[in-house]
């Protein structure tokens, strides 16, 4: 019996105009947007490759350690085509040196970017699905029960020995089968375009499968919302209006409204101030020690003469937004003054004292900074995200971002890797005794050999990590589905036909 019902419903759904229209528009939007996104991704990839080459060249051109520029770049994530998340927005270039701990908020942007481009919001495949799938679900569901009730066919069906739950189940299964057609077809087209120009790994395909499954849960949730409206109302006209306004509110109004309700709090400023003071103290302490060393006549001799001879440039400041301490010491000499030789041992002593000091100060400041940055930047965003999850759009967006690895955690993985790389570089400097070497400050005996420096590599975390991050939201979607379905069954069983 169930089979017969499903068959009837399937036929009913497939032969409608709305099915054809929805299929067409979904295909069109997904294919067009994918083409645009692929072009954009390739541009970003090219600019990444150029930047890597340029930074490598810059490093090799650095003659001394103290004036070296070591930069690492972040490659664009190919899955940002599905959900761009923070991938395009945040910095993709950060400097590495011992007197500074790189963070997400210090990162800069390399490449062809016109700052005004940020003006146009970027659309990804998930955004297309967010809007279209939800609309599809509601359009297919609003008259499922109310329409049959109006036409009187519901009575006829219920006159048969069928349980009411079965009718709902049949409707749900057949509608979902129909709705999956545009979803799967458009994704296949997108993948076809994608694999032609971007190589994807097995893990990437698994991640895409996760995104597809999440999309399915999202679609089903909106179908059930429509079904609930359809069961609860008497007339299709009313059901339709309710469904449309619910859609407008959940998709259009609510996500944009939360920004207005959450007030950027004043205690962020307070927090920044206290953390800055703490870090400033660490930096001051470093400066005190450094100056004390310079004033020590038995080691340095006349400090001002020494500073002039090696053309010492120092900087020790705390960035007032990102709280990062910048502790720099460098000798800006290209040619050797004739009486320089007597300063070489002093300079060696100076740098081998001061650079480990800077390293330690930056490490110490990091402990304070880490906590403060979370409070200043992250807490607000996490709160926004949580509020956003009151609408299914928010849950769907968060889950797909986690799958694609373009969420905050995914990006933080990269910056964790840069901090690990900073440690590697510091270890390398210690191992090669660079701080106390002549090449640290002058290149008269040949420039620094950078070929033995370990290169920076970054691999995205495996698909298991993505799954772990996405599953809570996915479960939330599934639970919403289940609860809604049970609610619908209850209402339908108790309602009069």
């Amino acid at each position: 019996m169930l089979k017969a019902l499903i068959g009837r419903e399937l036929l009913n759904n497939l032969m409608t105009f709305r099915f054809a229209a929805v299929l067409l528009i979904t295909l069109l939007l997904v294919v067009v947007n994918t083409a645009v996104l692929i072009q954009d991704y390739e541009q970003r990839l090219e600019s990444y490759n150029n930047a890597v080459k340029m930074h490598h060249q810059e490093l090799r051109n650095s003659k001394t350690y103290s004036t070296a520029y070591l930069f690492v770049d972040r490659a664009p994530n190919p899955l940002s085509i599905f959900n761009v998340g923070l991938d395009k927005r945040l910095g993709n270039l950060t400097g590495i040196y011992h007197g500074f701990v790189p963070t997400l908020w210090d990162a800069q942007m390399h490449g062809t970017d016109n700052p005004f481009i940020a003006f146009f919001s970027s659309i990804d495949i998930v955004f297309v699905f967010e809007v279209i799938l939800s609309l599809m679900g509601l359009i297919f569901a609003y008259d499922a029960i109310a329409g049959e009730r109006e036409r009187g066919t519901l009575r006829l069906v219920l006159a048969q020995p069928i349980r009411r739950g079965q009718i709902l189940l049949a409707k749900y299964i057949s509608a979902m089968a129909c709705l999956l057609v545009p979803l799967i077809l458009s994704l296949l087209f997108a993948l076809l375009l994608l694999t032609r120009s971007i190589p994807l790994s097995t893990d990437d395909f698994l991640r895409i499968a996760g995104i597809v499954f999440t999309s399915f849960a999202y679609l089903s949730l909106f179908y059930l919302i429509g079904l609930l409206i359809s069961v609860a109302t008497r007339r299709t006209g009313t059901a339709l209006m309710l469904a449309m306004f619910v859609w407008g509110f959940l998709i259009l109004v609510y996500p944009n409204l939360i920004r207005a309700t959450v007030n950027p709090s004043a205690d962020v400023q307070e927090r920044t101030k206290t953390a800055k003071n703490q870090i400033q103290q660490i930096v001051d302490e470093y400066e005190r020690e450094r100056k004390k060393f310079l004033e020590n006549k038995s080691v340095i001799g006349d400090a001002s003469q020494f500073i002039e001879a090696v053309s010492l440039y120092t900087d020790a400041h705390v960035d007032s937004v990102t709280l990062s301490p910048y502790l720099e010491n460098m000798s800006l000499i290209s040619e050797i003054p004739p009486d320089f030789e007597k300063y070489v041992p002093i300079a060696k002593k100076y740098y081998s004292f001061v650079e480990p000091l800077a390293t330690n100060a930056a490490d110490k400041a990091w402990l304070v900074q880490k906590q403060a940055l979370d409070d200043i930047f992250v807490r607000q965003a996490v709160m926004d995200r949580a509020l956003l999850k009151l609408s299914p759009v928010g849950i769907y967006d968060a889950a797909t971002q986690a799958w694609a690895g373009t969420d905050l955690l995914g990006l933080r993985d990269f910056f964790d890797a840069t901090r690990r790389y900073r440690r590697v570089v510091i270890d390398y400097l210690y191992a090669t005794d660079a701080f106390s070497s002549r090449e640290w400050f002058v290149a008269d005996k040949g420039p620094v050999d950078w070929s033995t420096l370990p290169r920076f590599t970054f691999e995205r975390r495996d698909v298991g990590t993505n799954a772990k991050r996405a599953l809570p939201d996915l479960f939330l979607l599934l639970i919403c589905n289940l609860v809604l379905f049970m609610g619908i069954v209850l209402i339908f069983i108790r309602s009069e036909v």
Partner: protein
Amino acid sequence: MIWHIAKREIYDNLNSLRFALATVLLFGLMLTNAVVHLREHPARMQKYHDASTELLNRLRSRTDLYDLAQLGPEKFHKKPSPLHFCADGGEVFLPDTIYILISRITNDLNTLWYLSYRYQMPNLKNIRPNTIKVDWGFVIGYVLSLIALLFTFDSISGEREQGTLRLTLANSVSRHTVLIGKFLGALVSISVPFTLAVLMNLLVISTSSDVQVGTDAWSRLGIIFFISLLYLCLFLALGLLVSSRVHQSGASLVILLLMWVSFVVFMPSTLASTASGFSSPMTSEEYWERYEQLYAELGDEYNARLQDTRGVPTKRIELRGEYVSKGTERGERLIHEHLAQQHAQIQLARSVTRISPAALIQHLFESFAGTGFEQHQQFVENVQVYAREFREFVTDMDRADPDSRHIIGVREGMSQKPINSEAIPTFEDTLSLSRDFNAAAVDLLLLILFLAVLLSGAYLAFVRVEV
């Protein structure tokens, strides 16, 4: 007769669920908009006033002409628009300050100040979810247009389904009377709650003493309101067109919704990103390369020619003056080229998006509210005009002193007399309604054209359709 049909429509609508929902939605959004504006605007104005007063004081404290010519006014602040609540215009992505730049030619020779339009990528530290600001542009562009479609999708096809259309047309009523009646009915029944919501919004905003809305702003608001009504008519006409061509109201709704989604939600962004891919402006790496090359060349040239002036101090001063003005001019030209390329890219993308009425209305709102990209360009122009004025002032002051050698850019070559600080020209960012009108003329004409096409389309469709 038209009025009779319109009245029937209005009564039908007033009792319907969609009217109630639309009213609640519009009022809720407009109230939120007003509250947010009241919360944010005073702080914005305060920040602007503090910054510009401090700047003015620093400028006035200069008495030496050379310092004034070299260091200039430091920076320029954009004045926040009082009509920020109408269109936010992506203000977070636009710089609100233009800084100046002084470049080094050689160790002891610097250029005069010139405008530096470079600024950091916005959003680099923003990890909060992407949202559209709830301004009038959002409420009207997205929500009101959706409501217009929901009010008209069944106005012909629904009556046809119920059979009442035959009854109406059996009377001695011409078809266009019916169509106009229906159009007017829908227009009135949406614009009444809309107008009330707008009035409530303005009432809430104008009750606060912190936010001043002047006469100029009121006329701008009037224009914006008029444009919103045009936009509303556009979507009503679209709804009637589809409704009279399609026989089932369900199908008509599906078509309208899909059209709405493509034109309003997707088209502006997709077209903009496609169009901005066509041109690639100078990258910042390229800019810096050219910048460094420029000053390295100038420096070498200067050093080479400096040898000839040994022992002749007047010649030396002349040479320095020459290179200061060369360095300033070339640096200015380079940075201006960079900015012009960036602006051209955005301008192209923006003109392509004009196919979408939602983008049109966004542009129009920005123009008349004095926010957004148009206004930013105007701000840049204002600053450029001021920069010229400032240079002229320096030249005039120098010329007025007979003891000066009239070599601008070198301390020894310029007037040593202290200057009257009151006479220094000051910068004030201004908006002009006529200029905004000119900028918006194309958009406005396009909107009217779309409206005319859709209205005549609806008329033709309804006149020729079988009942």
